[in-house]
């Protein structure tokens, strides 16, 4: 069967290491296979690694599957994995994920060991980013005289145009921005996979209404993402199915304490947290396709605290403002992107009108993401929107990037436009970073969430839900997941 699918964008490159982005990972799961991958319960399934065990505090050993063939016909061995790992360490985008690792040892042809610098709890999370590449295929020179294995951003490298992985599909045609065609790989190792799609045609359709229209008109079988406003329509429509899942990307506002004196006052921050009716936003703007958040990590993450609920209470907010001496309010500026997150502009607008109710007057400016990020880096407004998805699918990652005291050397607090800084929190997160006992670690991270909540360090809004639309015959329910990497290799399409 052929699956025609429309996504909002196509992968930037066929090189899985060029950019860490959803598009690249989606492509990687089709063309390559990782050592391990997430399953629906947020734990790991072995893929190219059959099994793994901890050797010591700092070492994890992986046993590779035997007889796995690359698209080129070469067999996959430990050498390929090692080659891939070393290449990852040079990738600007992936470097950060593998920072805790000191290296990879090849034990024998089918066994490798990942070694960390200190005890590290998230080895498997990182292993899910290792998609072994065909080292033989990628060695030598291409016809331009460049190394085939060259990894370079925004450059015309061999790897960005040619791929040889072990995944279920091979790329047979690619017109960037227009169309991409994948064919089922005959020699795919996973004979148990029920997948029966012979060919996938991917068309990027940027405009959401057009994408939805294409599905409704039957021009495509599978689309993602589906904007909240169209959910009802897809559900109602006879030929189509809508699959939604609560996601892991959290949307928040940060309050810049360096720019606004009042934000240094915890009560003002709390007042704002109480004034923002994020459940209202979820209900009205997100049409229920989001989960209102009271903390950073969603349910299922290590740091998740059941009790930290959204806390909309206008009276309390006003009282807090009065207590802090800001009964008459003040004026602040706010910035948000208008094409980055689902309904970002509308959310910002709604939040500004909510703040107006506690006499905080907001000058809102929204702009395309291309212009937004430089502004964000400059910390140009008093309140800025930021959404975050933890690459490691782990609670600590949120705090490290969003709320830790800014530290150039470690890169912590890189996205902390609020300049919130609480050394105690940093210390806890750091400790959790080398705590391998899951229970202890969870307790630490929960404490972090609790502190941030009490401090109103930021304003949590919601976790974006994920939504996919597909025609009834495609059983996408089985293959989609919160990471938004549909495992299309396993997709079953009814004829």
């Amino acid at each position, binding site marked *: 069967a052929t699956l025609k699918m429309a996504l909002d964008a196509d992968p930037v490159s066929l090189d899985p290491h060029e950019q*860490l982005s959803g598009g690249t990972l989606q492509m990687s799961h089709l063309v390559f296979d990782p050592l391990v991958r997430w399953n629906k319960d947020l734990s790991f399934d072995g893929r190219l690694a059959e099994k793994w065990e901890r050797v010591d505090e700092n070492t994890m050993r992986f046993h590779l599957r035997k007889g796995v063939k690359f698209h080129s016909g070469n067999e996959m061995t430990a050498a390929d994995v090692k080659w891939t790992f070393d290449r990852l360490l040079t990738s600007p985008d992936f*470097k950060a994920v593998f920072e805790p690792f000191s290296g990879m040892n090849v034990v024998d042809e089918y066994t490798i060991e990942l070694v960390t610098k200190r005890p590290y709890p998230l080895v498997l999370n990182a292993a899910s980013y290792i998609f072994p590449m065909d080292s033989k295929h990628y060695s030598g020179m291409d016809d331009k005289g460049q190394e085939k294995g060259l990894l370079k951003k925004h450059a015309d490298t061999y790897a960005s145009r040619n791929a040889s992985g072990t995944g279920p599909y091979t790329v047979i045609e690619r017109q960037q921005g227009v169309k991409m065609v994948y064919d089922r790989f005959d020699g795919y190792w996973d004979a148990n996979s029920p997948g029966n799609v012979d060919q996938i045609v991917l068309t990027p359709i940027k*405009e959401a209404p057009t994408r939805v229209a294409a599905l409704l008109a039957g021009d495509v079988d599978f689309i993602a993402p589906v904007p909240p406003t169209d959910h009802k329509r897809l559900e109602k429509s006879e030929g189509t199915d809508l699959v939604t899942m609560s996601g892991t990307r959290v949307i928040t506002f940060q309050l810049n304490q360096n720019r606004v004196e009042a934000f240094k006052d915890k009560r003002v921050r709390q007042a704002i947290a109480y004034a923002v009716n994020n459940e209202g936003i979820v209900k009205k703007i997100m049409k229920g396709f989001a989960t209102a958040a009271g903390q950073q990590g969603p349910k299922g993450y290590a740091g998740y605290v059941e009790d930290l609920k959204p806390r909309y209470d206008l009276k309390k907010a006003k009282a807090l403002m009065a207590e802090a001496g800001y009964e008459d309010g003040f004026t602040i500026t706010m910035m948000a992107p208008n*094409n980055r997150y689902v309904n970002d502009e509308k959310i910002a607008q709604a939040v500004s009108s909510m703040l107006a109710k506690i006499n905080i007057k907001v000058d809102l400016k929204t702009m395309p*993401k*291309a212009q937004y990020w430089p502004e964000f880096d400059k910390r140009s407004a008093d309140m800025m929107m930021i959404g975050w998805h933890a690459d490691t699918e782990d609670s600590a990652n949120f705090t490290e990037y969003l709320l830790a005291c800014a530290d150039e050397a470690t890169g912590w607090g890189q996205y902390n436009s609020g300049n919130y800084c609480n050394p105690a929190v940093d210390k806890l997160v750091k400790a959790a970073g080398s705590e391998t006992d899951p229970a202890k670690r969870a307790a630490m991270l929960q404490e972090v969430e609790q502190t941030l909540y009490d401090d109103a360090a930021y304003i949590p809004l919601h976790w974006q839900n994920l939504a996919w639309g597909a025609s009834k015959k495609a059983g996408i329910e089985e293959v989609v997941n919160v990471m938004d990497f549909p495992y299309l290799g396993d997709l079953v399409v009814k004829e």
Partner: protein
Amino acid sequence: MFVISLISFSIQDNLGDPLREMVGQSVSEAERERLRDELGLNDPFLTQYGRFITKAVQGDLGQSYFFKEPALDVIMAKLPATLELVFGATLLIIVISIPAGVYAAIRPNSVLTKVILGFSILGISVPVFLTAIFCIYLFSIELGWLPSYGRGDLVPVFGAWESGYLTKDGLLHLVLPCISLASIMLPLFIRLVRSEMVEALSTEYVRFAKAKGLKKVRIYFLHALKNTMLPVITVGGVQIGTMVAYTILTETVFQWPGMGFLFLEAVNRVDTPLIVAYLIVVGAIFVIVNTLVDLIYGLINPTVRLAGGEK
């Protein structure tokens, strides 16, 4: 051309930071800075512009960050799609506006004329994106007659040019985008043809043609229409150029893999070389179209042909 390149080059700083679109979220600032250096984005404006011009003179407008190919090649690859779209729309405009305008001019009081003019005013009043989405809704979703996006099956014509005009599927895909693109200009052309035709019909030579005892058809379609076409062509040239610019909206809505769509994407991705290249190409198209129009004008109008070089 030079002016266009300077203007477009100088605005690039304000479009945003191209790096952000190239890297993942967790890449550190220092790393980004290093990449920026590598791209030469941190050089002073004049250095960058100087470098650009030196290369541009050799026909190299730089590499697209996103496509990793020479920007000009990328644009050229998308040019056929846009040209086919514009061509289709132009064809539609010609096929509809001339008969409609002529009819409205010769039968000023008929009901159909009122309908035509009413429709054309409505056409001016409705924004393109409304027309486009409405078309999709009606023809693809409700009626299911026409595909909603893309170009469909293509057949290579000369070498690199892939045409959608030669397959049924390709033609079907062309219908909606062409209609919505045409809808911008069609009303204007109908009114232009009508008013010029009215003008032509009131001339002395048309009266003389009647006095000569010629048949109506010949008077309308030879004597009057030929003269009507002169201003229509002049205006038409400018408008077709403008239409190339309007494709941005249409292509975005219909996911038409053409230049306009590419351009909007490039703006979103801050793919500056591509933006600059696009502007230059569009400028060139403009110049070419205007020159062509002058040529055609000369062919139709003997006065101009003989006076030669005068412009």
